[in-house]
């Protein structure tokens, strides 16, 4: 049983919005539970309520603009909701907040957009005005809508915490995947070229026994990947006769990226904190089925 052995996490690559790591000695079930936690159980901030100002809109110069837009208000509201917003993970869900669902600075951030045409409205025009005003959109260059001459967009919006279970706009991660640790096993007797392979690959991905040379594509440092992908080294591997691909079903290589609302480090921390809770729910429902 794999669970009797020690569980270990090692991080292979980490950037602000990307992470690759290995967990050993867990079952596929737990690995998949972690993957799904990363996808749909990380709380983040997203705009949930948008109020459009309809009718004539006047700017400070007294010019009159119309509130009708090239797209339906519903589409614009949906687009505004999908914009990733920098999140403070200490914020509360609205229904669990001390304000009892009325909305306060601990659970809500308000934004407004005040833009007149002609021109394009970008996520950077979304300005926070109540709550924590540090929580701006992570990317200021996402187009929301294009305004014609004499058109204007005057909008207030409220962002609340949620999880990916409810709507994809509360999904922090994308491209979450895991695979088994993998090694290519080359039989030395049957491949004269093995020494060339050994010398050409970085030492960190090569292993050696009396009979076999092993190469892994689960590298530790950055830059090795590009090296392995070069066609010359592909051809070395393809030319050598029997190459066995071995997968170690106790070692899982995860990778995921975030939309910037939370850093990759924060995200994995929250996921690992929330995972036991999710497993407990399963456990309890097995003990006392309703």
């Amino acid at each position: 049983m794999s669970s009797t052995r020690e569980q270990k996490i090692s991080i292979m690559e980490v950037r602000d919005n990307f992470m690759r790591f290995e967990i050993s000695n867990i079952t596929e079930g737990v690995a998949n539970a972690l993957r799904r936690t990363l996808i749909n159980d990380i709380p983040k901030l997203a705009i949930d309520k948008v109020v459009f100002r309809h009718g004539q809109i006047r700017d400070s110069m007294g010019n009159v603009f119309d509130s009708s837009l090239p797209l339906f208000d519903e589409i614009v509201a949906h687009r505004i909701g999908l914009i990733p917003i920098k999140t403070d993970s200490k914020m509360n869900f609205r229904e669990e907040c001390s304000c009892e669902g009325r909305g306060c600075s601990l659970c809500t951030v308000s934004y407004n957009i005040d833009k007149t045409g002609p021109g394009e409205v970008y996520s950077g025009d979304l300005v926070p005005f109540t709550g924590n005003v540090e929580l701006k959109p992570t990317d200021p260059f996402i187009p929301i809508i294009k305004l014609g001459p004499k058109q204007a967009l005057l909008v207030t919006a409220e962002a609340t915490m949620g999880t990916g279970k409810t709507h994809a706009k509360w999904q922090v991660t994308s491209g979450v995947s895991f695979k088994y640790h993998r090694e290519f096993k080359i039989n030395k007797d049957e491949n004269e070229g093995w020494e060339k392979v050994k010398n050409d690959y970085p030492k960190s991905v090569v292993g050696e026994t009396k009979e076999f040379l092993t190469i892994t594509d689960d590298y530790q440092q950055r830059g090795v990947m590009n090296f392995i992908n070069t066609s010359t080294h592909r051809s070395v591997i393809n030319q050598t006769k029997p190459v066995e691909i071995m997968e170690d079903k106790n070692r899982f290589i995860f990778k995921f990226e975030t939309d910037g609302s939370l850093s990759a480090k924060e995200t994995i921390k929250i996921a690992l904190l929330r995972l036991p809770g999710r497993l407990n729910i399963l456990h309890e429902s097995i003990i006392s089925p309703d």
Partner: protein
Amino acid sequence: MIIPIRCFSCGKVIGSDYRRFESEINQIRSRNREPTSDEISAIMDGLGLERYCCRRMILSHIELIDEIMPFS
């Protein structure tokens, strides 16, 4: 119509990447030639669009917002 904000399949934010992609394509076109498929591929790699679900969002998009502007 107008570029979607996120990739339909994986949820990566691609709305802002489309404008960057467009400007690099236009840079090549200003030299009086069409970008080659390798150049397009390199631009998308540079934008961090790794998976083909995100790549197709950019590649298959047709900007029609200017066409419908007069009818709003």
